[in-house]
């Protein structure tokens, strides 16, 4: 499946609003229950026939300074709910929320006001090819299943065993493809925003070679200042 992934936009403003071609029917503004996906809203937002429509999955990873984390975590959750989204996961120093795609930019803007953003990574993954391909294969699989069902009704006992085996395989394939399409629909309809409250990862710290030339810079901060042992 061809997947086009937009480059990470570290430190850049949020991308332009998602295209409206896919948003034939906006997601319901009603807040789903916490920690649960909303399949109904997801299926409403994504048309069954995406011909000529670009299907994008938006994800945002935002890193914020480690200050007043508890209040900021609560703020992110509230912003998601107000946008018609829901909480997906929450730990001590990070939170993941899902928001209706049409509210993605607004939610990002509101969340970024809750703290001091140190890093921003926003991606749009194009799943149009995969979606269209799945749809075509699913259509063929339905035809195959119906045909096998017809044959089974007229088959002799010996042939019926082979047909049932093939019918089972096709049915399994249909369920797998339906599951994948359901997942894609959900991911397209609800953008994922993860906010982390952590210092920059060690590998990114090493990238800042300029600062490595002055190791005493590493001794700045509350850790050393307040350590009077």
């Amino acid at each position, binding site marked *: 499946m061809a997947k086009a992934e937009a480059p990470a936009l570290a430190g850049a403003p949020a991308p332009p609003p998602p295209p409206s071609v896919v948003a034939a029917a906006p997601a319901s503004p009603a807040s789903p229950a916490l920690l649960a996906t909303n399949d109904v809203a997801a299926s409403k937002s994504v048309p069954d026939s995406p011909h000529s429509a670009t299907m994008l999955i938006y994800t945002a990873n935002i890193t914020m300074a*480690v*200050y007043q984390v508890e209040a900021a975590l609560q703020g992110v959750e509230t912003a998601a709910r107000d946008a018609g989204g829901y909480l997906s996961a929450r730990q001590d120093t990070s939170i993941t929320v899902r928001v209706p795609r049409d509210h993605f930019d607004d939610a990002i803007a509101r969340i970024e006001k809750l703290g*001091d953003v140190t890093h921003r990574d926003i991606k749009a993954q194009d799943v149009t090819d995969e979606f269209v391909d799945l749809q075509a294969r699913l259509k063929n699989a339905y035809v195959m299943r119906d045909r096998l069902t017809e044959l089974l009704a007229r088959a002799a006992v010996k042939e019926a065993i082979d047909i049932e085996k093939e019918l089972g395989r096709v049915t399994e394939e249909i369920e797998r493809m339906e599951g994948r399409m359901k997942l894609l629909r959900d991911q397209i309809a609800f953008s994922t925003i993860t906010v982390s*409250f952590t*210092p920059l990862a060690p590998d990114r710290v090493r990238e800042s070679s300029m600062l490595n030339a002055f190791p005493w810079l590493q001794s700045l901060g509350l850790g050393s*200042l307040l350590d009077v042992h």
Partner: protein
Amino acid sequence: MNTHASLLFPLALLVASASGCSRPFDIKTAPGLVELQDQEPAYSYRAISPEGVAVAVKVIDLEENQGDLAFWARATSLRMHQLNGYALLGEGDLKSRNGVPGHELRFGHDESGKPYVYTLRVFLTHKGWPSNGSRLFLVESGGPREEVARYQHALDWMGGSLEVD
């Protein structure tokens, strides 16, 4: 002999001065904080309050052309904000008591889930002849947010008393 003695006495004073008996800065310790002894080499000066509010001064000797004040203000800001995850709450220019320009960075950071604040003031002076180098002064203060607020007057007073050479 008298001539020799009159020459040796100023020389002895000069040697004593250059041997580290005096610091290249002066800062007054506010009532409520005590200066800690033997803080070298990490700090040239450090004082604390019983509640855990601390003030410290680091002095970094730099070679010639190793950055101006803007460079070091940016480098320290980058270090604390983007790498250490400190929230930049504010910043601005200021001067030491003896008129040396400096830059102040104010940060917030959670320690064990509690909000702390941390202020860093950066000053840069040029050493006199025969050196072409410069001296970077890093004045740090911080502690639990509520305690720092209680000590803000004392911290401001200490910051205002700083003179750098």
